[in-house]
């Protein structure tokens, strides 16, 4: 990420340390993950220790300190999805693509993530693939959806 872009994100939050969370969210929104250099830049720009920035980035589960894939498949692991077999969806992706939760394929094509409930419990088990919600999934439908991903 260019320094100028980082600066404009910092400026949009008034260089306020109290907006650290939102600042990091914006960076991840642009970059899809949080590179070390960006975290260092934020720490310097807000005049806070790098440990505090790093603490935030590791505390909140929505942040990734590793590059994420071109496609992101997020499987909901909420209770309703759990009792309807969400674990089997995760195992399916592990089997077919060789990646566990939080991991990305070596070609940076696909990232598997899990989330504790997205608030569409009646539709469980559910996965979000590149921002699109897919409900009442079976391992077969999930497999088909992932096969259809382009690029």
């Amino acid at each position: 990420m260019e320094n100028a872009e980082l600066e404009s994100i910092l400026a949009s939050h008034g260089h306020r340390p109290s907006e650290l969370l939102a600042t990091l969210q914006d960076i991840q929104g642009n970059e899809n993950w949080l590179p070390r250099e960006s975290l260092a830049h934020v720490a310097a720009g807000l005049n806070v220790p790098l440990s505090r920035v790093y603490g935030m980035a590791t505390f909140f589960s929505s942040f990734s300190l590793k590059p994420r894939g071109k496609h992101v498949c997020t499987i909901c692991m909420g209770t309703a999805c759990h009792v309807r077999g969400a674990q089997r969806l995760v195992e399916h992706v592990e089997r077919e693509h060789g990646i566990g939760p939080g991991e990305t394929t070596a070609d940076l094509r696909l990232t598997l993530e899990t989330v504790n409930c997205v608030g569409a419990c009646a539709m469980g088990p559910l996965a979000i693939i590149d921002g699109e919600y897919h409900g009442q999934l079976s391992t077969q439908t999930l497999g088909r959806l992932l096969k259809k991903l382009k690029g």
Partner: protein
Amino acid sequence: METRFHSVADLEAYRRQLQAVRGPDRKIVSVCAGTGCRACGARGLAEVFREEIAKSNLEVELRVTGCQGFCERSPVVVVQPQSIFYQRVKAIDVPEILTETVEKGTAIQRLLYTDSDGRTYEREQDVPFYRHQTRSLLAFNGQIDPDSIDDYIAVGGYAALGKVLQERKPEEIVDLILRSGLRGRGGGGFPAGVKWQSCRKAHAADGIRYILCNGDEGDPGAFMDCALMEGNPHLVLEGMILGAFAIGFPGQPKGYIYVRNEYPLAVERLTRAIEQARRCGLLGKGILGTELDFDILINKGGGAFVCGESTALMASIEGFVGEPRAKHIHTAEQGLFDKPTNLNNVETWANVPLIISRGLEWFTSIGTGDVSKDPWGGSKGTKIFALVGKVNNTGLVEVPMGSTLRHIIWDVGGGPPPGKKFKAVQTGGPSGGCLPESLLDLPVDFDRLTEAGSMMGSGGMIVMDESTCMVDLARYFLHFLADESCGKCVSCREGLAQLCAIVDRICKGEGREGDLELLKDLSTTVQTASLCGLGQTAANPLLSTMRYFEEEYISHIHEHRCSAKVCKTLIRYVIDDSCDGCMACNAQCGTKAIQGGKKARHTIDDSLCTRCGVCMDVCKRNAIHVES
């Protein structure tokens, strides 16, 4: 059209103008596009309606709404003025709905809701799922396009605010909320009025008081706050503005809504609603031409369950990691940025405008107990539950406090799906507990649930049948909480890790004599020695399953048997005689555990089988079973 209201009279004149144009006979097609319906393609459906309406010459309004609650049958569409309720609507049905129903007023039979006895219902209000509910908070979700402040104003929105600003004093409103017995819907059930009163009384040197809304709905299995924020954001805003007046006026009240990162649609809708309210003079300086200044900012969470806890939430808004602190000094006195702070949950805030516009008597007539002398004396009003899991009608259910579990699960929810037997219902999320069949007649309110070893929580209600293993469920919640524990207290951080290890062992068939006593003992330590609600209630799912389903633990430990056939090490897959050797499972098995050639009965080599279940999914003859 948005106008700026310079006075309450402006707002009321505008409302009359809106209502005059919107007669009761207006033709409206409302399409539910909440997160649940979106998962079923509702967004595309709304687009098809838009195109088809544009092509036709029909005078009909398309209203894309937030969650209407009946998620099981999504996407749902309601045609007004007749209130004809259509379910599982597909794009291909759209032209017919327009010509038959909108134009001619006739219902299309195949799209109507049919119950398990084969009865068909035409009107929304007759469908049993809706008929057995008491919808006051959710009532508007089907009538409002959440992006239209006009829709909200037309159904009486911001009237409570107008009335209060014109006629009432802040103290009167605090007193009203106190006497209403409104208790916190986020789970704790603390009387809102008591909180408001202490925040109002707290010393604020510079006049700043923070009015916060907790939209960090982290309980897996609960999505009522999501539905309110997505479906009716102005109701939440109006509640907060009323709170700002009651708690912080005169002075400088400031507002924040803390929304989960996992709810992007809620953030989008709230952001738009706040912008509209500012343009209309309902937020910002001099609200409705009065002296009240109040604005609301949105803070997006980062995906940490513990941030639903009040002090952790405040730390997060301040730009720190979401760790709770001890509450020797209440947040009402020193909360966010060390100022007096009042935090209420989304659903609590949404109740406030209704209590004010419909009155104390209306609110206290719903629910249990007597709150006239003591706000702890009962549970008043309605509560929204997210009814999910193994039940026919999954969705959002709003019923009076004190309704029985049986009423909610059977009358509204239609009971378990055909062929399934009810086993337990889990209420209150990871802090709650599992209740067995013998407690189905328990009236659901804050105090009864706690007595039964569960809790209200934010209102998640997960129905389970015999295919859910209670030990596995306890394991699920323990792992969830161990993951989400912030790690500040040793008892919670290490205690939960040990509880997980023991229950993991039991699920693997390696349970030992004395494990149950050890679990109970350790649970007590975690409960008593942890600082915040997460740790204090973390053992509830474990303790309640041990209390009501002890025999399952015993059979796991002593017989190495999982009667629900869930725990992988304790089960095995077998193929019966009905196998015709079609090779489908054989081809799918990743570990080559299935043997047998074409047209020959297959067998599974248990030592190679990973119990992934793929074979069972692909078997067309249902020849594969699980044994324990």
